[in-house]
């Protein structure tokens, strides 16, 4: 059989791409890319600093607002045992109007129960998000990818592939082409969302996925997307959907 003349050219383009296994790879948790000492810290309930935030979240979950109102625990149980962990693993979800992150759902629920309104990524909301997500630790990330999500995921993927800032890289440059390689001493991961909110050793703070994206954009010397902006919600959705099939590790410990 004769090959069309263009085929060798196309093949040479394909072969010139970065290693194929990084492109078609199955998703791997950031856990696989961190140092053994960091894994040990994550796995030890006394060593993992993220568990302090889980405990803060638990207290907030049980706190009764001043005046009229009720605590989260009044409906969902003191240990949030009434929450469906398989549903927690679905976030972010589409509520018919648009994307709802886990934190936004918690925020809405709080306000509906007579609590004051808090801005996105307020420390108390991040703590509640960490506590609730931690309830689903070990569950499989299971973000909807069909229906109304399909078009949103396409937009999120486009944002993932755009270059940003003076450093002028896209997310895909590091996390699709070079996972396993090192920037200085740090391993590059696939940029998965299953460990978030995670405790970041680099900054010594608990960080949810959207905050991590903002921090990465700042590192690129780019103007980060604003909290709760359309862009960050779309990118967060896309990244979490890539993590489908991975176990939730909240609170993971990451560099």
């Amino acid at each position: 059989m004769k090959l069309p003349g263009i085929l060798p050219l196309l093949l040479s383009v394909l072969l010139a791409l970065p290693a194929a296994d990084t492109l078609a790879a199955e998703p791997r948790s950031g856990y696989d890319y961190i140092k053994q000492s960091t894994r040990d810290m994550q796995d030890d309930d006394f060593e993992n600093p993220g568990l302090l935030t889980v405990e803060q979240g638990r207290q907030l979950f049980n706190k009764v607002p001043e005046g009229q109102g009720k605590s989260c625990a009044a409906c969902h149980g003191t240990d949030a045992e009434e929450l469906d962990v398989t549903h927690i693993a679905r976030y972010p979800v589409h509520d018919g109007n648009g994307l709802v992150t886990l934190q936004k759902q918690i925020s809405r629920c709080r306000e509906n129960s007579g609590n004051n309104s808090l801005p996105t990524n307020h420390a108390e909301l991040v703590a509640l998000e960490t506590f609730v997500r931690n309830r689903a630790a070990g569950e499989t990330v299971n973000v909807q990818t069909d229906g109304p999500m399909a078009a949103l995921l396409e937009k999120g993927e486009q944002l993932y592939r755009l270059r940003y800032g003076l450093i002028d890289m896209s997310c895909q440059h590091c996390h699709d082409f070079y996972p396993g390689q090192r920037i200085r001493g740090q391993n590059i991961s696939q940029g998965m969302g299953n460990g978030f909110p995670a405790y970041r050793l680099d900054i010594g703070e608990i960080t949810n996925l959207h905050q991590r994206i903002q921090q990465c954009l700042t590192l690129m010397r780019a103007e980060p997307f604003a909290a709760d902006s359309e862009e960050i919600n779309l990118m967060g959705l896309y990244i979490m959907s890539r993590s489908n099939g991975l176990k939730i590790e909240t609170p993971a410990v990451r560099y």
Partner: protein
Amino acid sequence: MKQTRNNLTSQILLMLLVLSISPAITIAAEQALPADYCQWDVTDYAIAQPLCGLAGDDARGREIVTDSGSGNCLACHQLPIPDVEAYGTIGPPLTAIGARLTEGQIRLRVVDTRKINPMSIMPGFYRDPRLIHRPDKRYAGRTFLNAQQVEDVIAYLVTLK
């Protein structure tokens, strides 16, 4: 993730197509270049002339490539510099780069390597600032390194033989 490669291939082909039609598409016309930005010309995959006609200093260049707040070449490349705790492994090692490439070829790779490989992860250290997407305000209209720094880095790299 399975579809990534197909998407990537079509993206590259699309990018090549776009580049071949009109480079002006990606340039925001209303943005002015900084007054001190020197134009450069690519011939045979090289920039023969030093930026702004400047002469580089290899000792300063060696400092720039190691300084994580400046060129930070070590973030991605191995270099024959002792006592460095950790090198990046993203880019090719630069040992003997001066024996493998001419000065002009090195200059193009430092200035804007995407003239050679549009998908490269490497930042263009003297790329047209109008091509940078969404820069932080502190960096808008700036190049990664200034022309003198680029020439210093090149003066250092050509000594690696």
